């Protein structure tokens, strides 16, 4: 296995958190002996079309995405629908590439992304593809706010996963678990997190942007019905 098409399914495109993570996996892929990947952003119309065409002509496809309302973004689902003819091709004896995935979400726990992971695993089966695994990572939105130095350990782990993909044709289970971080909070963790959510500092990311945009006073706006007063 040598050729890789790297697909960024984030509607934010080049500047997305998904792309930040995919870039590190791609670095590892090259380090592991893979060829320089072709990188395509599905949000760009021409690249979306190219991504459909490139699917059949590569050894491996790595599709990364953010979790949107607990599933893949509509953009990614549209891409998956465009691959329907490849299901027929596989049934007729044609080969589809190995499929690897990356799902990152803004929630700190990995558990939110597991149902989508299950879907993606079944998708690989549907396509008659070898399933290389899904990188799941919570806290993705925080990548924007963190200094580069703070993400160094995560970047290194993603590079190792890229190397594994190039070398072994799949992600290693131990490294996937390490990257996923916290699956769920413990009982004590839930208690601490519940308390933390009541102090303004935990919402600093949102408060900072609300204030910067002059929207702070309207932060609880409810244009379509009675507001929640909790």
């Amino acid at each position, binding site marked *: 296995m040598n050729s890789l098409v790297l697909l960024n399914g984030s509607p934010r495109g080049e500047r997305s958190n998904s792309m930040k993570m995919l870039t590190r996996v791609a670095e590892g892929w090259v380090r592991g002996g893979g060829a320089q990947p072709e990188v395509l952003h599905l949000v760009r119309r021409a690249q979306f079309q190219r991504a459909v065409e490139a699917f059949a002509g590569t050894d491996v496809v790595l599709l990364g995405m953010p979790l949107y309302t607990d599933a893949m973004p509509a953009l990614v*689902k549209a891409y998956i629908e465009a691959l329907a003819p490849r299901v027929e091709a596989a049934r007729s004896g044609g080969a589809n590439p190995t499929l690897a995935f990356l799902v990152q979400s803004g929630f700190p726990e990995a558990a939110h992304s597991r149902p989508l992971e299950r879907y993606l695993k079944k998708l690989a089966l549907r396509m008659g593809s070898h399933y290389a695994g899904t990188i799941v990572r919570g806290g993705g939105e925080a990548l924007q706010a963190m200094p580069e130095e703070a993400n160094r350990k995560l970047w290194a782990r993603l590079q190792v996963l890229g190397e594994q993909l190039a070398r072994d044709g799949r992600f290693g289970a131990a490294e996937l678990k390490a990257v996923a971080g916290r699956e769920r909070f413990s009982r004590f963790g839930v208690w601490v997190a519940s308390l933390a959510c009541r102090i303004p500092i935990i919402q600093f990311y949102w408060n900072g942007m609300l204030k910067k945009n002059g929207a702070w006073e309207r932060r609880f706006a409810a244009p379509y019905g009675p507001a929640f007063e909790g």
Partner: protein
Amino acid sequence: MRITILNGEPHAASPFQAYLERLTKRLVVQGHAVTKLDLAALDLKGCTGCFNCWVRTPGECAKRDDSATVCRAALGADLLLLASPMTMGFTTALLKRGADQMIQLIHPYFVVEGGEFHHRARYAHYPVFALLLDPGPDSDAEDVEITRTMWGRMARNMKSRLAWTAVAERTAEEVADELARVA
């Protein structure tokens, strides 16, 4: 009861469209106030993750498209029926496009509920969710279960619950009667 149907069928003339028409008629005959939104006919620009609906124009998508119509109809209902054929093992990209823009109905602040991080409610009331799927020849029971699980989590993040899931294998009238009982 107020019922809003989000129709995620992209094709104008399909058996599922006809099925939904029969289901809608039955619900109206039963006395329900039904709003059926054909998402294919709406201008939905899609969520781009800009978060403007959270931090710039709180509660409203800055794109000024028909997502406001979807959100108003969803929030004004007692029951929100998500209706879609299944393609490649999940509901359509069209239905997902409508749903993605519904993040304007919740607040960015985190809260812990049921042992997990979720977003704070923006509204006092949210509709109960229901899911109607046309599996077609390409989907199996596992696909339905995966789809149900993902929409169940979405309902939970929308401060609600997925109360009912059905596949369009029985008559539209039977399904409508069952839906009315659930709601």
